[in-house]
């Protein structure tokens, strides 16, 4: 066993950290303040990142990508999340879909399906799940009068006709490629840029945090997917559920850990500067114990994440149950770290002029960004 990061991990970590510091940090506050959710997505910044290879970091090297495995991506993702959680998870979603396509279809198909993505520095990827029956979780919590009908797929000749709304799709408006998982019959498709033309953004949500990311309802109006779009032959669903989907849970956690770390660093800095009771408050157990909890939870989260990502980097290595639970565990730890860090700042932490309340909003939104904790636990329960 060897827990030492490799040279390539460290080099990419430095690069991402520099990008976060020089490019992300200067613009995040302005994005956060922008009221119109359709105007927050930082296209220009993401293209800068793309030129550094961040967008295609997970794509095969022979296709011009970075060829990074999940473990390496965790090092990069944490630094990007230290920059900004929304931006980091945008890249993470690109990585997840890219890895999914490669793993499910192999590299030759990859180029056919994601060629546009590789070449277009402004292209991003997303994913959509079409359940057999609409789930309670997907219904709006308030009286949904006037809501569009929930999405459904119907067999239509050689393909499927897709109609209705998919709620809360990450970066849905910016996506030029969409991985579609159809629950019934279990099948996976990749809808590329042309197919996405028939998909409309029906609503931008104004989320409290991760505001540099898009959270939209996508509306399919007689969209079509056909055998051409299919990723795997029938029967490949297990591979998807057990080996590929877990990437979507764990990779974004690296970004969350980065944001938690940034909140903690700000708390540490404040605790060293702020004097009350005659000494820097870091010397009070009231504060010091909170900072200790932060360190312990971040350490545990990072180790758990690395172990999951390492397993996901090997053939047949991942344990879906553990990955699902790692997602819940890490995101809950990171949320607590951010909140505790805000507490260390006292009243100042609650003010918008300080960065602390933004970290808390970001981490809280993270808990709402993908499948919810209860839903993940319910999923893990069946694998006990």
């Amino acid at each position, binding site marked *: 066993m060897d827990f030492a990061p490799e040279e390539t991990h460290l080099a990419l970590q430095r690069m991402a950290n520099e990008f976060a510091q020089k490019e992300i940090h200067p613009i995040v506050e302005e994005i956060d303040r922008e009221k119109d959710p359709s105007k927050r997505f930082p296209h220009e910044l993401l293209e800068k990142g793309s030129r550094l290879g961040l967008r295609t970091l997970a794509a095969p090297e022979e296709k011009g990508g970075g060829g990074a495995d999940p473990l390496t991506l965790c090092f990069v993702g944490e630094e990007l999340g230290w920059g900004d959680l929304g931006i980091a998870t945008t890249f993470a979603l690109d990585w997840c879909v890219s890895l999914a396509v490669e793993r499910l279809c192999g590299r030759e198909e990859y180029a056919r399906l994601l060629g546009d993505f590789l070449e277009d520095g402004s292209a991003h990827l997303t994913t959509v799940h079409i359940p057999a029956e609409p789930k*309670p*979780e*997907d*219904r*709006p*919590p*308030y*009286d949904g009068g006037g809501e569009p009908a929930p999405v459904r797929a119907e067999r239509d000749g050689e393909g499927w006709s897709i109609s209705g709304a998919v*709620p*809360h799709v990450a970066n849905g408006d910016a996506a030029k490629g969409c991985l579609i998982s159809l629950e019934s019959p279990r099948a996976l498709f990749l809808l590329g840029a042309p197919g996405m033309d028939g998909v409309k953004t029906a609503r931008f*949500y*104004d*989320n*409290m*945090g991760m505001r540099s990311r898009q*959270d939209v309802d996508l509306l399919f109006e007689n969209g079509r997917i056909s055998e051409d779009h299919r990723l795997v032959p029938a029967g490949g669903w297990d591979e998807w559920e057990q080996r590929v989907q877990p990437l979507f849970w764990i990779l974004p956690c690296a970004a969350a850990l980065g944001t938690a770390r940034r909140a903690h660093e700000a708390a540490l800095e404040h605790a060293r500067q702020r004097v*009350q*009771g*005659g000494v820097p*408050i870091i010397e009070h157990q*009231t*504060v010091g114990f*909170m900072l200790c909890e932060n360190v312990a939870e971040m350490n545990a989260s990072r180790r758990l994440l690395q172990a999951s990502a390492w397993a996901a980097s090997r053939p047949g290595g991942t344990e879906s149950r553990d990955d699902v639970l790692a997602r819940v565990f890490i995101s809950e730890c990171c949320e607590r770290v951010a909140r505790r860090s*805000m*507490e260390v700042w*006292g*009243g100042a*932490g*609650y*003010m*918008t*002029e300080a960065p602390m*309340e933004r970290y*808390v*909003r970001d981490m*809280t*939104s993270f*808990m*709402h*960004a993908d499948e*919810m*904790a*209860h839903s993940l*636990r*319910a999923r893990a329960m069946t694998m006990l």
Partner: protein
Amino acid sequence: MQPDLSPEEAKMVGLAREIARRDILPIAAERDRNYPPDQAYPWEIIEKIDAAGLRTLTVPKKYGGFGARHLLQAMVTEEIAYGDLGVAVSLDQTYKFTRLLTDETTPDQRDRYLDDFLNDTRALLALATTEPQSGTDTFLMYDEPGAGPRMSAREDGDSYVLNGTKHYISNGGLAKYYFIFARTAPEKKMSEGLTCFLVPRDTAGFTIGEAHSKLGRRLLQNGELVLQDCRVPAENLFGEWNGGLAILRRMVSGALIPVMGPSRLAYDLALGAARRTGLFSEQWARMALTEMYMLIEASRTFLYSAAWHGDRPTDDSKRRLMSKVFASDAGIKVCRMAMEIWGKTGDVYHDDRPTPEKCWRDVLSYLHGFGTNEAVKLKAAPLLAGEGEEEW
């Protein structure tokens, strides 16, 4: 136990409940989201509150108020807070400092200010201690030279001249009268050199600086008070010269926070959502909702019990202090669970309807409001039984 309210008291609670739901709740989300901090306060509502007799709830009967006891105050502010926590806090601050204005002022001060306070339908009160360099120091009364407020007041003929800046002051910019604490013997400790002054907003040299933008509780204005050669007549000395700490000690001895207002709203929003979406059929959602109910009921009985004792010889500062810690933690958990039940929409801002996320943002203010929870524990600790058992 069940609050044993008189019919008159129950009526006041009912009025507060009605105003909260009819007048405040429908506008709160929009103001929270879209109004700048110095314009978010709904003045038209304080007039309705005043008309219902609720602004002067704690004014003694002899001055024409309701003469409310602490328990009623706690129940009324909780009802108002169901509509919006910020509005409730602006009122709660006024309730607390009304007792200073009516009972602890000199006859001369009452002559000059009480009628105006009673008659001005928008008159609110504030008390100002916190400064950029001293928050917890003042709260915990860290009694060393140099610790505590730095604002200075010096005697100059028939008046006092105040210089310095307060910040994060609740009702700062909203209140008409301020109780302001300044150092009157700068080289000495707070216990020997802190004095309170009654300062009307229109005093020359007194300006409102920044209206702080906050994570939540955004309808309440938390303002910066900038005092530059602010000249206050000698008659506005409040309490004893160099005797400010005694006043402060009483004023920060335990808040009866209306945190269960937004917590109850969050619960209602979650229960409605769970039934509507069908999530109620899942065990985890049923467990979460019963836990929310439990935390709300435990908090309310604890808070009410502290308030009930507040009017009795058994009044106990540590009970009030720790009910604040308990209820704020509980409220945050309740709102967080409500957001979880709202699912992926749980973190979305809305201008047009109440949401659990606003409740949560509002309630988070109590992590630090009226003392950070950790500081409150340290404040309560010396009050634990000295020898032997607690008098339960």
